[in-house]
């Protein structure tokens, strides 16, 4: 093993009778719901340093002038960690995520200006990064709050039925 493998999801090894498996922090709360998409295992790579040097066809969310979050498919995370510039930290496990639809739903979750996204603010009372694509919103938040956030999102959706 090389340094920081224990932070990444893609370094587990099956064999010798072991079959490592992943569990999403949202899986129990979202069980049976098809209105919210669990993005917890989406690759989330934090880059610190010269974020302008990030190149390629990547989805890059700038957090500060010196920090960015690169979103990628889970299977691309390992390769990206090797080639991204600056200090690279795999935050896939740190951030849970979900995708949902509807401006009204978001209005009941956050006081962020939905016309000024992406932005970081409080969603369902927890710190959150919110991205928008038309009527679709992606939320990324500390995984330890995952179950709470999912509960609130489902409750809000129920209230709007």
């Amino acid at each position, binding site marked *: *093993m090389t*340094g*920081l*493998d*224990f*932070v*990444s*999801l893609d*370094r*587990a*090894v*099956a*064999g*010798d009778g*072991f*079959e*490592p*498996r*992943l*569990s*999403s*922090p949202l899986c*129990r709360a979202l069980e049976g719901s098809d209105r919210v998409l669990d993005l*917890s*295992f989406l690759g989330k790579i*934090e880059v*610190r340093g010269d974020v302008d040097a990030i190149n390629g066809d990547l989805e890059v969310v700038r957090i500060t002038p010196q920090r960015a979050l690169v979103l990628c498919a889970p299977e691309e995370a390992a390769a990206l960690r090797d080639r991204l510039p600056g*200090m690279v*930290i795999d*935050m*896939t*496990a*740190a*951030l849970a995520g979900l995708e949902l639809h509807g401006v*009204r739903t978001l*209005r*009941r979750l*956050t*006081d*962020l*200006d939905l*016309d000024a996204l992406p932005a970081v603010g409080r969603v*369902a*009372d*927890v710190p959150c990064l919110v991205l928008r694509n038309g009527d679709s919103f992606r939320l990324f938040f*500390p*995984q*330890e*709050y*995952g*179950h*709470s*956030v999912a*509960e*609130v999102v489902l*409750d*809000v959706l129920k*209230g709007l039925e």
Partner: protein
Amino acid sequence: MTVDGVPNVRVCVEPVREGATVRAQNVLGSLDRDLLNVVDRIGGPFTPVGFYYRTMLRPRRLWPQYERVLRNLAGLGCLDKSGRRSGRYDVEHRRADVLVIGGGEAGVAAARAAAENSVGSVVLVDERAAPHIDGVETLAPARAIGFYEGGLVPVDAGNVLYRFRAGKVVVATGTVEQPLLFPGNDLVGVLLPQAVRRLVDDWALKPGDRGVIVSADGAGLDVVEQLRRAGVEIVEVVDLRESLPSTLAANGRRGRLESVTIEGRELACDLLVMSGGRQPAYSLLAQAGARVEYDARRGIFVPVDLPANVEAAGSVTETEPAAAPPPPSFDGGDAKGRCFVCICEDVTEKDVKRALAEGFDSLELAKRYTTVTMGPCQGRLCHLPSIRLYARETGSDEGAIGTTTARPPWAPVSLGLLAGRGLEPAKRTAIHHRHVELGATMMWTGAWRRPHSYGDAAGEARHVHEALGLIDVSTLGKLLVEGPDAAAFLELLYPNRFADMKVGRVRYGVLGSDAGRIMDDGTIGRIADDRFYVTTTSTGADTVIEWFDWWNAVWGMDVEVVNLTGALAAVNVAGPRSRELLGRLTDVDVSNEGIAYLDTKEAHVAGVPCLILRIGFVGELGYELHFASPYGEYLWDTLLERGKDLGIRPFGLEPQRILRLEKMHIIVGQDTDSESNVLEAGMPWIAKLDKDDFVGKWALEHVQARGFREQLVGFEMANGVVPAEGGQIVLDGRSAGRVTSARMSPHLGKAIGMAWVRPQLAVEDARIEIKVDGRLEAARVRLKPFFDPKGERLRA
């Protein structure tokens, strides 16, 4: 009234619904036969305003009983203590370019104009049904309940609280009809003109048979024709602008109006329409920052100097006088009725005069003493009359007295709506649901949910000593400190040394503030030359991260601090059989030579990459495994499965607390407080005062120079009684310290604990006394760990 168990419902505006249970509030019996009337009849002279500040004070032990009676009689309604959340409440955050509050003519015109000028989104809020306007979103029935900092306007729409932030707010809240003050003005049958209009026009109800109108403006006179059309006989109309009667009183029986006496003439009637003019409803404007000044010409208060982005429309800004300012109150002659200033709070003219006589000559003080304007109407009907009364009684004028501060909420709002949804954010570890499935009792530690125990705290603690235990420690704060200056950075932050640490080693660290006080503690592992892995307490993680970031910014060192708290789950496998279990799950050498005490190593455990730290908070051979949190359930399950034949058993926070106490390991915040430092806390070896510098060094040097004032020690009770945490150490009848932790150790069979004591008591085997349930119980001071004082089990 109480409707369906909800107290304080304004039934005059609450829509009727099939099956609703409506009960009178604050009555004993019924409204018509209320036994509490006896308080009015014979208790009145004994219960003047503020009587509870002066009476019922002694004996003090009876005050709780007095208080209960008083609260029951206060008319605030009763909540069902066993009740549960009965309704659904939501909060919705809204933005609008223009928000119009008030759906009267002016509000509608303002909204229409904004829509026609295409200023963007326009929202109109009104308490009653507002008309449809093209390009305008109407929220009705809904009420703006305040105007907060930053232009936040919450709007109560029943079960949804809209939190508006608007580019421009137009306040068109109109005016509020003012009552007249005369004896008997609270009788049933005494109405304001608006109430008459609503009864007749909206509900086709005849408000009485014989009516008298006393009005200071046209509003009162306008209802005359309406009343006639409704079949009410008009007995007398008094226009106060033309003549001011020397006496005015309403007379009644059983709380209902029977006649009105005007200048000695008694007029039989069951309806009295009174109007004392109209006061602009300026509260929202005042909350927004407008100044409110007295207009002597019209005898009312008006809003001026509106803040930017706030406009007023309609009669709230009315400038033309329409009313003759009525007298503060009318002489009632021989009338027996009481003259109410504030109907909501039962404050009479006599109460206000009494408050003045007692020295409450400031309106703000008198408001708090009498509670005038503090009722559900928020002063709509009593603010102006009370100011007029104060002006007359103090010989001052209304402008000099001014208004009281306008504060939200402007309208009554249910607590349920303010509370919002019934879900509280909680941090859960990746293994949380496994604990629940195993029957753990969950408890709060900060924002985290953690297992207290799995049903047998003492048994779980004993089992760790005897066999093998497993605990979820994912809540620990976890930081990565990386960069060329990482070692130097930690050297400056911590009192102890890290620059000399070899890669693969772990050291205990206590973080101190500038003042040398203990902030947090944890372990620091060096996992590369320029990379350290730092753990913090569960509840201190956020503070430590801020502290690190702060100093990193101040010193400008070449260091990056990364918060991995949520990214990583962590478990501690502890007990004499822990090595055997770990050996089954990994290829690395887990012997004492492979991973010695205070070693750290990266390795796959059951196929999952882990950082292994050999540390021992619970005092036994143990390994802490840190790994990506999504593998939490898998690794937990695997450890339990593969350790089954070794007798593995999960243990919770409570057994962990017992075990750490046996080792005299402190818990920051429990055994320390905001004054504690490492020297007096019995950890002088932590502070390397020969280092050039570190945060808090000067303060620790000062502590060493001045000598210790108290010391943290262990104690062992003589008779097995467990003292309460916070219990007093007593010496010669005086306090000489306090207990910080105490437990019965099932392994040692003794009641043990830790306490801060005076330095002269910090001697091995010193006898101390601890107050337990009022008695003094003997104990002996211990300076070494109760269990395995040489640490042989940890190093096994």
